[in-house]
């Protein structure tokens, strides 16, 4: 009994250490975002500020128009902070469109892999497993040259096309094994009732695969929302930046605007973190399926 208690206490202690590690950066960012530069500089040794404020968020979300009390004296505010509303819109448009496109294209291809066992289609599956390893930078350097010629730099479409291409192979890897588990008999029954093969896919296989579609959709949205390198290389004008690109452009301002930057980071991570907590089970399923089946 005594030993049981000791083990249990040790497990609680280990859990507390892990939880503290998991929450440490988020706690640091939150404490940083909720105070002024003045309170941060008042003491370099205390963890909590003498006073709290929401002014950092007010300045960001109003595009610099509403200077909170802490910025009334500031003559300089980085330009990209003022344009952060563009970035929020761009990130939302890009992540949503990429999610829809990859779900559509990915399920079409995954179905052919799962059901129409042609040899070249099976090659597509092998290639998809392999494609995950292609480093983004190798492809982005030539894409920059090509998109420059096509006039696709500084547009949401260039980023959408590139991200869709990168995330599609993962969809084939996740969706095809799931489609294969839908009983063939159900599709055949629909075909007897007059459905075409494609109709049976739309009306039978897809609705029965919503868990896999949710897994893939959630992962794609998170990756697309978080991605930096693709929009960083393709879009350098403030109107077309996504949130991660804006954050990257402000790296050198960090040392002047610690608190403002932490607020921007919190705004950028909130949507994807909320999504992962809401769709936790689907994300877990998708990550394990993507790693295991090939």
């Amino acid at each position: 009994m005594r030993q049981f208690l000791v083990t249990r206490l040790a497990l609680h202690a280990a859990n507390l250490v892990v939880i503290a590690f998991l929450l440490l950066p988020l706690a640091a960012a939150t404490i940083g975002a909720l105070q002024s530069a003045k309170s941060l500089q008042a003491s370099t040794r205390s963890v909590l500020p003498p006073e709290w404020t929401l002014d950092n968020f007010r300045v960001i979300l109003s595009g610099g128009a509403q200077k909170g009390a802490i910025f009334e004296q500031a003559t300089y505010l980085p330009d990209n902070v003022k344009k952060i509303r563009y970035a929020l819109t761009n990130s939302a448009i890009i992540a949503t469109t990429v999610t829809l496109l990859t779900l559509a294209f990915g399920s079409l291809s995954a179905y052919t892999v799962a059901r129409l066992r042609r040899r070249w289609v099976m090659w597509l599956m092998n290639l998809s497993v392999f494609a995950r390893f292609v480093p983004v930078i190798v492809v982005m350097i030539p894409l920059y040259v090509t998109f420059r010629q096509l006039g696709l730099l500084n547009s949401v479409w260039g980023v959408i096309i590139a991200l869709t291409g990168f995330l599609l192979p993962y969809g084939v890897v996740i969706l095809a094994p799931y489609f294969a588990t839908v009983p063939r008999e159900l599709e055949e029954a629909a075909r007897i009732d007059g459905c075409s093969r494609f109709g049976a896919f739309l009306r039978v296989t897809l609705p029965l695969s919503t868990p896999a579609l949710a897994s893939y959709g959630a992962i794609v949205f998170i990756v697309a929302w978080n991605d930096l390198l693709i929009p960083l290389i393709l879009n350098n004008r403030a109107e077309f930046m996504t949130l991660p690109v804006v954050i990257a452009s402000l790296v050198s301002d960090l040392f002047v605007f610690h608190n403002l930057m932490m607020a921007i980071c919190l705004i950028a991570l909130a949507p994807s973190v909320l999504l992962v907590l809401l769709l936790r089970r689907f994300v877990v399923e998708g990550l394990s399926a993507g790693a295991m089946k090939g």
Partner: protein
Amino acid sequence: MPAAAKRRGRAELSAAKLGVVMNLPTLATLALVLAYPIGYAAYLSFHKVTPAELRRGVFPSVGLANYERILSDPLFLLALKNTLVFTAVTVVAELALAIAIAHLIGQRQVWTSRVTRFLILLPYAVPPIANGLIWSFMYNFDFGFLNRLLFSAGLISKPVNWIGDPNTALLALTVPYIWRTLPFAVLLVHAALQGINPELYEAASVDGAGAFTRFRHITLPLLAPILVVILVLRTSFAFVVFEEVLAITQGGPGDATWVAVWYSYKRSFAPPFDIGIGAASAYVLALIIGALALAYVTIIYRRIE
């Protein structure tokens, strides 16, 4: 039924044609975004491509000159070495931590384990660049959060220079990266642990095997396949670390934290804007990772058969 069959016969594409039509969107996208650029990157790596050539639209051939230049560039070799060290440290640490934490979150009767299991996925969702910036704030010498914590706990009497020391800056970069990418490894190990038959442990306990012996002779061999998968996947992803470097050190202090992708990016999109050099250096990286990918695919296929 015959009527339906007839209708189908007229309106429906054959399986072969349907396969082609249904794959058209994917094939078109992959051709534009993966296949063509991979070939074009090879082409660019053998040509001189700087802003002047980009404006003219003509890229003069330089043979192997770009490769000769990067392979004799000490900075490129340093970037490769740093990438190797960074990868080795993060992957080994993640494997060890993943095994430990996966055991911890598997304790269903401990309520704090359920909290950890709920939170474990959280870092996965944080944008890497935001993660980098947050850690940059934490590491800051004068105002950073880590020094404040240590001061408050009475553990230090003067601030620690976390990322200013060239000898430890690369190691300081591994912590934020491990924080962000650990959930993936934990989840996979956790899933594999759930698949182990508990009767194996009971039988071993009856035979008098202690906890360590059970781990060594039951858990570890049964986890081996998933550990190899994690090893290969995490290695190939750690090889392309970028965001944390950009946010925290920008390659510094000095050249201490230049890594492979940072080199390709800086050469291509910062002075000297030499896309030929960037493409060549990225190709070297791709070949290294390609070899890893081949190993991965081979392992996966052997397991399926």
